[in-house]
């Protein structure tokens, strides 16, 4: 290993190399391709678009670390958003006060936690596969949401909510602040707490964790509750950004969150991976999307480029582990 690589790993961790390389590549290539790319406008749009996807990705990340998955995150976000919208409407709609917003947000978080609680209990006690359990929850929430909204939009919220989606504090977009707070919270939770430690241990071998006295059921339930709460946060951001709630909103983000996790070096079978590389990976995806947008590319093409990127990253990871020897 060269001295540079050793210093790099000491500062950032070995799992940051891939995402940071991708970040540099996107900045250089897009910067050369479009003179408008490296401007405040690009970064402004990234800063406003990133948070929904970012918080949803955090909601996906923690279950993946346990070797599971939460496919219900987008619809949990919708239902949480509906909860908030309903609270606002019963308190006067557009004339509702900040108090109603606070109560509604708390209720939204509770609804998110409940969705996670149910999944966590089923997964922990029946050992059913998380894909099946969360898929069932996803279908349930979608059906419930469509039933409640008759498939339409709910809008007409008080004016003070808009800044949560569009405003800035000291020049920093509010949604970005929320995302950064969630990233820091997730990072500390996973790297410094007993729950985080147990999450990793369960992810790589749940039986050995149980034999070592880790309360695996409790950890699983908490992990899915946390995932649900994160999804609810994303739901609140989405409500504020679009000034409306519609069931199915953000549905296309679901698989992108999985993609972002793997791009950030999360082991798809659980047990390994950190929050910060995932955060960088998210920035890369969003920059790529904004850059292609600037170049006049079709929105759907962006999705295709994301897919190609993931394939390239997987091949490169295989190549680096094959040709550099024994790195993981």
């Amino acid at each position, binding site marked *: 290993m060269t001295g540079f690589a050793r210093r790099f790993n000491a500062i950032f961790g070995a799992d940051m190399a891939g995402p940071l390389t991708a970040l540099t590549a996107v900045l250089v290539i897009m910067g050369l391709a479009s003179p408008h790319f490296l401007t405040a406008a690009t970064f402004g749009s990234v800063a406003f678009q990133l948070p929904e996807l970012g918080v949803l990705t955090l909601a996906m990340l923690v279950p993946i670390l346990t070797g599971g998955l939460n496919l219900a995150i987008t619809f949990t976000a919708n239902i949480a958003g509906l909860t908030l919208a309903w609270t606002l409407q019963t308190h006067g709609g557009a004339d509702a006060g900040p108090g109603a917003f606070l109560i509604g947000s708390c209720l939204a978080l509770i609804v998110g936690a409940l969705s996670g609680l149910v999944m966590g209990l089923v997964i922990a006690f029946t050992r059913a596969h998380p894909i099946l359990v969360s898929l069932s929850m996803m279908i349930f929430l979608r059906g419930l949401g469509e039933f409640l909204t008759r498939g339409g939009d709910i809008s007409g919220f008080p004016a003070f909510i808009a800044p949560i989606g569009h405003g800035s504090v000291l020049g920093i977009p509010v949604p970005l602040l929320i995302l950064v707070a969630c990233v820091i919270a997730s990072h500390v939770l996973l790297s410094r707490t007993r729950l985080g430690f147990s999450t990793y241990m369960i992810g790589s071998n749940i039986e050995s964790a*149980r034999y*070592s006295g880790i309360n695996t059921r409790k950890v699983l339930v908490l992990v899915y509750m946390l995932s649900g709460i994160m999804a609810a946060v994303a739901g609140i951001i989405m409500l504020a950004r679009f000034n409306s709630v519609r069931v199915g909103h953000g549905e296309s983000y679901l698989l992108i969150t999985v993609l972002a996790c793997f791009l950030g070096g999360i082991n798809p079978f659980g047990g390994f991976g950190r929050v910060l590389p995932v955060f960088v990976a998210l920035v890369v995806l969003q920059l790529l999307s904004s850059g292609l947008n600037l170049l006049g590319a079709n929105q759907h093409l962006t999705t295709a480029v994301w897919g190609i990127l993931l394939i390239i990253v997987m091949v490169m990871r295989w190549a680096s582990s094959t040709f550099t020897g024994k790195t993981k």
Partner: protein
Amino acid sequence: MSIATDTGASARPILSLRGISMTFGGVRALKNVSFEVMPGEVHCLAGENGSGKSTLIKVVSGVYTPAPGAEIVFDGETLTRMTPVMAQEKGIQIIWQDLALFPEMSVAENIAFQSLSGPRMRLVDYSAIRRIARNALSRLGVMLDVERPLKDFAIAQRQIVAIARALVGEARVVFMDEPTASLTQSETDHLLAIVRTLSASGVAVVLVSHRLAEVLAISSRITVLRDGALVGVYPVAGMTQSGITELMTGRSFDERVRAREVTKNPVVLSVAHLSRPREFEDISFDLRRGETLGVTGLLGAGRTELALTLFGMRKPSAGSITLEGRPVRFSSNRDAIAAGIAYLSEDRLSLGLNQPQSIADNLVMASLDRILKRGLIASDRKRSLVARWIADLGIRIGLQEDAISTLSGGNQQRVAIAKWLATDPKVLILDAPTVGVDVGARAGIFEIVARLAEAGLAIIRISDEVPEVYLNADRIIHMKKGRIAGWHDPRATTLKALEAAVYA
């Protein structure tokens, strides 16, 4: 080395291997090993755990490809390579220790399984299957109901099914991996009679074992491996068991019985009439401070089940557990750990340690409370706790962050012991602590355990290796079919007597 044996075999070996070397990730598992078997011979392949026996069988059966320079000669034909399909066609059959049978399928289906998996799609002819199975069993002189599912039968009968399956494959050489490991004496005798039948019909049988007494009785020659190298090939006549042990380990062992007088120490753990249906029944004993209580018995004697119950992972149906004078009832192993009971699992690979995770994380896994500062894991406390135990138990590691799977079996086991010592236990249960640990590294683990006992830790030491328990315990419980079959004092009995009792 082509000597005719007293079974009257011809002078040409049926199978001969020369210059076999195998390397796994820098570790040389086999170093230029030669091995040969005569037609109809009963041959013993002996060696300690990790000596290369299993690797050699896997080369013979085509699972592993040896390093260049190897030569495999089967029945006079020199083969450049061996694949599992070729081994099958030539009639080389392996009966693995786990038997690799299908418990849900019938005896007949298990036996005739290979004739079912042909290259062409065809319908299953059940009457043909039953006929094949009955023929194979009758060649062994055994009658079993071939239509019943295999899971209805005991382990000894399943082994016979595995042998019958080998016969269906037109076996010419049969390797049996630790065939007597889970058998009682009479079952072993029956198995050995079947081996004689096979050998008389011209099939060569290679018994791979580290339990020598039984297999020596019927083998004509013995090949000894040590640390992946060939020690030698010897006629069995004139060999003693201790002589072979010396060949296998390369040194004469200090056969000192460590047992000490501990009856004046206070009782730490008291178990009375503990039972769990179909697992163990009416188990009572007192464990004193500084005492090492050995628990031995055959597989299925209920040893591990008893340990898991003491560790709170299973609930007793009757009886009581008293820890330092207070009756305890554990609802999970977390309660047991908090109360001061630690359990080193017999299955280090999947239960005892979290193999992909780091050495440090494995070591602190059961004692996270000790490295928390204001509710958060303090990395400096974690580092120093790990460093202290690594130094204390003399564990050889690279970095604390390395995966535990990069360590040798002996060092892994030391980390597993350290993990439990870090919880500050009053009672340490060691379940088969030397499984998969090299002979040399075992002595180090024995030393550590003896030191812990000297320091006052109460230890329950479970093992099916009778000598290990005999030499290292103060008192010994012999368990049989879930009950205490007898108490033994190592100072008042001989190893031979103890082994006779256990394998009876």
